[in-house]
């Protein structure tokens, strides 16, 4: 009885892994690096990738910059982001359908600064776009703005 249950659980786990892998396979990049200055890195799957103009940005990437660093990103829906010096930003979730303009954008500013010019996702549905800081959740209504997460000052 136990054995059979374990086998079912094992099969279920396997299927969900396969499903997750299938769901990920056709994923397009979330956007493209357009500008990069100073010390910058993309952290992906625990590894650091260099940030060069033209490089792809994927959902779940982290953008990290040093004291002299900054990065500019154009997402597929033409949301424009820039990450300033001494910053860490996590692109938590991204999806965009170019025909219907539906999808989702979630990004978290862990520290430092990020400027945002919102794109087609928030124009189609403001609730599809959310930015987070350690203490707050920000919703956008057709907006350009700057988020700063200080270091206790």
């Amino acid at each position, binding site marked *: 009885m136990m054995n059979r249950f374990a086998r079912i659980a094992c099969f279920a786990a396997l299927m969900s892994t396969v499903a997750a892998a299938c769901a990920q396979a056709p994923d397009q990049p979330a956007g*493209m*690096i*357009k*500008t990069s*200055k100073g010390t910058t890195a993309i952290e992906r799957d625990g590894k650091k990738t260099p940030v060069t*103009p*033209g490089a792809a940005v994927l959902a779940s990437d982290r953008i990290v910059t040093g004291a002299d660093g*900054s*990065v*500019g*990103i*154009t997402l597929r829906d*033409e949301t*424009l*982001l*820039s*990450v*300033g*010096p001494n910053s860490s930003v996590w692109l938590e979730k991204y999806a965009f359908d*170019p*025909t*219907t*303009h539906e999808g989702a954008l979630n990004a978290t500013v862990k*520290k430092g*600064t*990020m*400027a945002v*010019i919102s794109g087609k996702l928030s124009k189609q549905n403001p609730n599809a776009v959310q930015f987070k*800081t*350690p*203490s*707050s*959740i*920000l*919703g*956008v*209504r*057709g*907006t*350009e*703005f*700057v*988020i*700063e*997460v*200080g*270091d*206790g*000052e």
Partner: protein
Amino acid sequence: MSARALLRALPLICGALLAACAPMERVTLLPSQDGSPSAVVIKSAGKETILDKPYTTDTISGGGTVTSSQEQPEAVRQKYASTLSALPQRAAVFLLYFDTATDVLVPESQARLPQIKAELASRPAPEIIVIGHTDTVDTQSYNDALSLKRAETVKRILIEAGIPGERIVAQGRGKRELLIQTKDRIDEPRNRRVEIRVR
């Protein structure tokens, strides 16, 4: 203070300590490029604050309290200069039209090709997004397919003009984004267009 009282006060003390250590956060609204009203809705400590005046900064303290202050535009631009200067350029937009029922661009649109190439050459890591649009004559699914076909045609024209194909993405938007607002089933040549966004 008894041990029990201390224990009871512990969550409060911890909360106060965390609040003291938590980083100060600021959100500053910038004016939208076309001057249209815009806002950021800030949800913090269970409360909602709406930031809707350009160059206003909402400061969120460790405890989640939000305070508003009006800033000078020049001071904001200076404070965030290194971040703002890293923002990518906005897309440059071109509209192309066809001779009726053909794959041939009208002469005015043909003349746009050198401008598109020049725009492409001026940008770092450039991409060209080609978006087909239709009028409202047919059904959604028919127009989705038709608009993509028009975009693919323009992609071919751009490749023939010497633009590398891997830089070009063709997309169809069907009848969802009319240039001239019409009712359904209206033949409107100005809506049968292809939009090129160089970014």
